């Protein structure tokens, strides 16, 4: 039998259901793995010491003949942006160190109800602001493919945990690419669902109109299984969509059969030329497209003239909303409090200066500026108009194609420290992922190979119209099957072994 930790969630779930493996075994195997490697990877901020107890309870219920969900007993890592009652929730910030939420995020509650076993909380850029997890107040996470490189961000911890076999599944959040870009640089799968498909209740807010919670995994089917558990209307989230969703797992299974590719129209964006990407990234992207074409898909050029303004609009909308969302961290009701003399205003200001990192402060100040009197129309107001234009670009494109494909990010994993002092350069990592958040459409990143020049993972991103998440799972699973067959095994088989580095 394959090493438990090397199994993907679907296979593990099958073995749990058949009784071949117990959840206690599966959970312990992952806890052991975490102990062995997380000293080097630093994917986890907190490991759940009650995980084995939870696993045991699932095993007992199964033994008693209770009918359980497909993923019951499978361990799950949870990005620290999601609040949990039994583990601290810091959102990667010092200002929330030790914070214990009295309620569970809806997606966490649904995961528990489905029998998933929370292993721990994963590292992230502070308040989800970043593309490298270097802005975590608790130290960076290291890419399992090369420990001196970034695992992506803001959800680098979840992606690295899954890539390092420290968890088969993880929950993440994506505001401008925070699930998809880490998937790209770690050779894993990540989906940003349609805005409103998954509840944001309990996801510590960054930019309310852009944030979405989604699955992080090693295979497209696994991501589909997890999205099926967490998605659906939540009365606590006014922006959640009231509809019955089709099964993403079923779509993935269908896609893996390969039949859906013939006649599928795949759009490639003129305004995102190959020249804008690292050569190995562009090459891997083209290779993936060629494989789909060989199966009968049609590649169509589409134009999205307003994508040029997407990053600019994003870096106005996000800071503006974030500056308001982060105002609640003020030393009064929870979180850090600096005991300085003076008024409560002095305490608030000193606490926030000490508790927030430089990237967070940068964006709060920028956002405060964008909303302030006299600047609203030129900045925030204008950015909301660009949003309309980008939605129109997508609508026009999707009139001609079924999905849009792009490389997920411009480069492979850069070195830790390389871009930290250049915020503008860091922001450009999100070039291809941001438009989906602005428009609310779903996107998935699927590993497409390794870049020739550095041997580091590359992912291809598919985008679909709002509500058509299943399409992404179909195409993603089809491509995954073609590639894995060609490679003779998953890409992650080629990660270097992680030695030592015990926690």
């Amino acid at each position, binding site marked *: 039998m394959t090493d438990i930790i090397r199994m993907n969630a679907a296979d593990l779930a099958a073995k749990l259901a058949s009784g071949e493996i117990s959840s206690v075994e599966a959970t312990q195997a992952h806890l052991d793995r975490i102990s062995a490697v997380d000293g080097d990877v630093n994917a986890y901020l907190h490991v759940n010491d009650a995980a084995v107890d939870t696993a045991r309870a699932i095993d007992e219920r199964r033994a008693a003949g209770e009918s359980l969900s497909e993923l019951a007993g499978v361990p799950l890592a949870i990005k620290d942006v999601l609040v949990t009652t039994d583990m601290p929730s810091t959102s990667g910030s010092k200002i929330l160190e030790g914070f214990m939420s009295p309620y569970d995020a809806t997606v966490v509650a649904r995961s528990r109800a489905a029998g998933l076993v929370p292993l721990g909380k994963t590292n992230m850029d502070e308040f989800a602001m970043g593309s490298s997890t270097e802005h975590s107040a608790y130290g960076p996470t290291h890419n399992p493919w090369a420990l001196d490189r970034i695992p992506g961000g803001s959800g680098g911890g979840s992606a690295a945990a899954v890539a390092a076999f420290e968890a088969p599944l993880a929950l993440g959040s994506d505001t401008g690419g925070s699930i998809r870009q880490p998937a790209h640089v770690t050779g894993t799968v990540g989906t940003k669902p349609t805005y409103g498909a998954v509840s944001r209740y309990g996801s510590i807010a960054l930019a309310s109109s852009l944030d979405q919670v989604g699955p992080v995994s090693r295979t497209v089917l696994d991501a589909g299984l997890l999205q099926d558990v967490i998605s659906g209307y939540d009365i606590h989230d006014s922006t959640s969509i009231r509809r019955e969703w089709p099964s993403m797992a079923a779509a993935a299974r269908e896609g893996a059969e390969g039949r859906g590719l013939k006649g599928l129209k795949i759009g490639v964006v003129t305004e995102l030329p190959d020249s804008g990407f690292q050569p190995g990234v562009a090459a891997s992207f083209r290779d993936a497209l060629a494989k789909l074409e060989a199966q009968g898909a049609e590649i169509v050029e589409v134009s999205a003239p307003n994508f040029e303004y997407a990053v600019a609009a994003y870096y106005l909308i996000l800071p503006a909303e974030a500056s308001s969302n982060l105002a609640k961290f003020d030393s009064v009701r929870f979180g850090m*409090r600096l005991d300085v003399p003076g008024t409560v205003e002095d305490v608030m200001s000193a606490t926030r200066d000490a508790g927030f990192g430089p990237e967070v402060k940068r964006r709060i100040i920028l956002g405060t500026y964008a909303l302030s009197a006299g600047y609203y129309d030129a900045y925030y107001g204008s950015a909301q108009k660009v949003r309309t234009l980008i939605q129109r670009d997508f609508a026009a494109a999707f009139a001609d194609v079924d999905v849009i494909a792009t490389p997920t990010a411009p480069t492979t994993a850069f070195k830790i420290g390389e871009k930290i002092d250049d915020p503008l350069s860091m922001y450009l990592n999100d070039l291809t992922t941001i438009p989906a958040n602005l428009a609310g459409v779903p996107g998935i990143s699927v590993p497409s190979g390794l870049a020739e020049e550095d041997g580091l993972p590359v992912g291809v991103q598919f985008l679909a119209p709002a509500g058509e998440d299943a399409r992404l799972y179909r195409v993603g699973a089809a491509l995954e099957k073609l590639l894995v067959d060609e490679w003779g095994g998953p890409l992650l088989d080629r990660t270097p072994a992680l030695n030592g580095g015990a926690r």
Partner: protein
Amino acid sequence: MSEITPELVRHLGVLARIQLEDEEVTRLTRDLDAIVENIAKVSEVASDDVPATSHPIPMQNVFRPDEVGTMLTVDEVLQNAPDRDGDRFRVTAILGEEQ
């Protein structure tokens, strides 16, 4: 050439209740200046005839029934309180006034 000056940055720090050190003000002024120049281009395409989108998925009239649901217990409310006096949060003296 944008309008980001150290004075403006300090003022924004006050609005955002973040006490900025001098060094931070200098750094932020430089960073924001570069960022703002870059993002100012949104006003180029944001003409009057383009409506703003505040929500990606258009919906309206999302309500809940007027029925009492779960509330936090007093202990839950105060479980992360940095300082409390009995059932209430405690803060040091307030400078400003209620709006």
